[in-house]
């Protein structure tokens, strides 16, 4: 008995009704053409079934004879069908040919297929199975994903070739059937370096890519304006050149593993359904997914083990700070050694401890980026279990390792964090939501709510690896023992910005930040901002705290007066007037104090600003605005187009 796998209507139907008359369960006429009824098809679509959706099993068997009859009766010979087990070319044959190819006999044909695989799928597997995976990669992330994708492709009987875009000839794309592109975006929407030539080449040669099926996985950083632009460019370019997108482009943010996994899970079975002729057999997708998922021990499971970074050994001259608390003596050990450049600072310290000096003391981490492992290496404050030696060592090969600055030293590289912890305990930056207006679930349990965009903003502001390290970034800490430190204040400010924080807690935090040992005790935020992204984030957060306090106090106190009069003096003339600042910030008594403490006298008499004449020009004495001696000008001249500066102030901030 015949079983029909699929049936479809080709073009040029004359709507004669013959097929519908013979088998209305399968064929139904519209005004323009006969179509295959949705109810009998696996995909449930009502159209001519050019895509080749399979018939549901019972219908293929039940109506096989009628379908064959309808095909024979069709006066324009446009009803085509495929018997179960028939190879693709056989499907093109007329019903008579199908009849001489009984299913059992065809199923025994030499098509390589696993047990349970349909003949249609087996036919797809029998053809060319080449898959080209291009990667455009600047830092290796895209290359790593390409490798993983290639391993998973084997699950779908695909033979994957991972291709570096660098040096690839665009002309070689002609004739390819399956292509996946995984690329990062570099700088402001630029191609990665290894993709640039290929990109230029394909733009200049514009090869025809008809018959090519593709999809793109783009990696980027959503904090940039041109998010994933390189991937989007490739997607648009392939489409413009006639290639068929087998699946919509996947855009991945910095945490790319999850979206990549979602993309690869869908795209591989789909592109695996592209047959030898380059035609996407959509009807086989579900079967392909099942095939790739399982059960067969011979199928590769994919390797998700993180790759090992290997770099050459480098020679290091290590200067290691040592401090012995029992003798209160400190000094430096100098050790020459060779270490793999990819080793972390902690790796190196462990080696020294094991092989050179077992008494070396340092804090070990528990994983990459343990907050308490901070040390200073070649001037940089870093986490020892995270920072690689290759990123720290200069051309000289010297590596100077010291304790994290600004904190008391217990022994060698171990600093005393008890002061930090005590300050934190006093500051109480942890969440205390009560009392505040909240929301309750139906079961009465309190639940915190927060707007998603605000949650994202807070997350970005608090994306800090180690507050202990932030604490040691301040140059001020070493000179003001009462100063609580930026690591503490940043935590407080971030808590105050959190809308889940209770009103009482917010009030206490704001009051604490405004005290003499609060955020105003930091003498120079630039000393924090210089330490990479964490330092910049911390300095920005602390500056925001200051802005809030200034508004709350209406520019009161010395700090408020400094900011207010600095702004005003700039608004008045376009330039800062130091005399105005001194007068307003220090007050009359402060100014007099400056005279008696020697500073003004030093300026007046010229014992400063070395190299200049002792008294700067006689006119200075005669015309005060020119400055007496080396005292700053008392009256500034205005910059040209001063009104533009005034307008800028008035547009942005009228408080000055």
């Amino acid at each position, binding site marked *: 008995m015949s079983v029909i796998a699929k049936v479809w209507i080709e073009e040029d139907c004359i709507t004669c009704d013959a097929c519908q008359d013979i088998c209305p369960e399968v064929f139904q006429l519209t005004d323009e053409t006969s179509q295959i009824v949705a109810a009998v098809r696996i995909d449930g679509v009502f159209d001519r079934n050019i895509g080749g959706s399979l018939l549901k099993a019972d219908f293929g068997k039940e109506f096989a004879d009628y379908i064959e009859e309808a095909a024979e009766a069709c006066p324009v010979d446009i009803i085509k069908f495929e018997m179960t087990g028939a190879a693709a070319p056989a499907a093109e044959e007329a019903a008579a040919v199908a009849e001489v190819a009984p299913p059992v006999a065809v199923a025994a044909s030499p098509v390589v297929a696993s047990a349970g695989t349909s003949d249609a799928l087996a036919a797809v597997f029998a053809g060319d199975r080449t898959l080209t995976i291009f990667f455009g990669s600047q830092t290796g992330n895209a290359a790593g994903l390409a490798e993983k994708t290639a391993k998973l492709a084997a699950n779908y009987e695909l033979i994957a070739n991972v291709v570096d875009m660098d040096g690839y000839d665009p002309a070689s794309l002609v004739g390819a059937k399956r292509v996946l592109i995984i690329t990062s975006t570099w700088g*402001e929407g630029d191609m990665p370096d290894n993709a640039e030539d290929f990109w230029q080449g394909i733009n200049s040669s514009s090869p025809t890519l008809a018959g090519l099926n593709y999809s793109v996985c783009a990696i980027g950083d959503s904090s940039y304006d041109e998010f994933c632009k390189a991937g989007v460019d490739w997607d648009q370019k392939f489409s413009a050149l006639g290639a068929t997108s087998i699946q919509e482009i996947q855009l991945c943010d910095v945490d790319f593993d999850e979206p990549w996994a979602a993309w690869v899970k869908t795209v591989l079975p789909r592109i695996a359904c592209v047959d030898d002729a380059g035609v996407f057999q959509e009807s086989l997708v579900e079967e392909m997914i099942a095939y790739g998922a399982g059960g067969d021990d011979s199928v590769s499971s994919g390797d998700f083990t993180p790759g090992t970074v290997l770099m050459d050994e480098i020679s290091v001259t290590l200067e290691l700070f040592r401090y012995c608390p029992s003798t209160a003596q400190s000094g430096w050990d100098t050790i020459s050694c060779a270490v793999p450049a990819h080793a972390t600072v902690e790796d190196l310290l462990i080696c020294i401890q094991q092989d050179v000096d077992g008494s070396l003391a340092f804090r070990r981490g528990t994983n990459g980026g343990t907050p308490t492992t901070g040390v200073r290496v*070649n001037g940089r404050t870093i986490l020892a279990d995270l920072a690689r030696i290759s990123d720290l060592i200069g051309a000289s090969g010297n590596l100077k390792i010291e304790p994290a600055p600004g904190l008391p030293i217990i022994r060698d590289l171990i600093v005393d964090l008890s002061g930090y912890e005590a300050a934190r305990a006093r500051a109480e930056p942890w969440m205390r939501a009560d009392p505040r207006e909240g929301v309750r679930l139906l079961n009465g349990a309190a639940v915190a709510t927060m707007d998603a965009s605000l949650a994202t903003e807070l997350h970005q502001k608090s994306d800090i690896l180690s507050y202990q390290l932030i604490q040691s970034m301040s140059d001020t800490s070493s000179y003001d023992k009462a100063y609580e430190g930026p690591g503490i204040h940043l935590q407080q400010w971030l808590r105050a910005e959190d809308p889940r924080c209770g009103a009482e807690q917010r009030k206490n935090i704001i009051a604490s930040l405004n005290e003499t040992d609060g955020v105003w005790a930091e003498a120079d935020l*630039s000393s924090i901002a210089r330490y990479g992204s964490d330092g910049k984030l911390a300095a920005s957060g602390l500056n925001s705290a200051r802005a809030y306090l200034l508004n709350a106090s209406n520019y009161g106190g010395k700090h408020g007066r400094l900011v207010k009069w600095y702004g005003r003096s700039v608004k008045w003339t376009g330039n800062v007037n130091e005399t105005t600042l001194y007068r307003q910030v220090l007050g009359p008594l402060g100014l007099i104090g400056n005279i008696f403490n020697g500073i003004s006298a030093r300026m007046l008499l010229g014992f400063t600003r*070395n*190299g200049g004449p002792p008294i700067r020009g006689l006119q200075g004495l005669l015309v005060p605005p020119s400055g007496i001696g080396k005292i700053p000008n008392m009256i500034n001249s205005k910059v040209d*187009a001063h009104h533009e500066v005034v307008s800028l102030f008035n547009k942005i901030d009228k408080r000055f």
Partner: protein
Amino acid sequence: MAKIAYYPGNTARAASMEVEDCIVPLCKTLGIELIEIPKASSDGGNIISQASPKLQHSLVARNLALAEQKSIDIITTCATSHAIMCDTADIIASDSVYASQLNNLISLTSGIEYLGESKSRHLLHYLVEEIGLDKISAAVINPIKLNVAGYYGSNMQREGACGNDDAFLPNYLEQLINAMGGVPVDYELKCQSVGAPSLLTLEGTAMAMTAAVLADAKQNGADIMVSACTISHSNLDSYQSRAGKLTGKDTAMPVVHLAELVAFALGHYPDRFAQLRTRALIIGS
């Protein structure tokens, strides 16, 4: 002759005349044509930003746009001003929405926009990277012949603001001192802040920080100090006796600005240089 816009910073024109005296002749000797931007205003000195970062960014973007109108970069003698300009240029390059807000503001008030083409260059980086140490060395008329401690400060010693120098272990100043016939003195605190932004509000802390830098340089054998930052120069120089008195440290040391020292080496103001040498001799003894 290389053309570049000159931005003196917040204090050079009003309080640090010696920098103004020296920058013009030194640039003339080295073939640098300074272009004035008389409409340029104060950059806010990281003080205005404490009330309104947007206002400070707008002031700086306007200054950069004024240079961009002339299709040239900006050179400044002040490390703080340089860092502030770099910060603003960075944020404009990385945040197009914010950049358009700033440009709308300066377009409304000044009829110009900053497209990110003109960049800030600090005098130190420009001398080392563009002019070259060989050319400077060849132009030296009065070799410094003193032990000189270079002071960088913390403002411009960060990635993206220190040219090709190392942000944490810089040596451009030392290379330049060498090229001018001086002996560079290495010391630990050459990048440490002296608390200049808080001079009037946290005097005790700022003086302690200032004294630490001066004392460290002196203990390492410096005769004089050269500062790459105009604002910090004031703390290190005018306030050094006060800093020494409050901390009990030996802080007495002649401090000059980078522009002065280069000008002296190139033969300008030999009288001032003679005074400096004399002063170094007296104080150092």
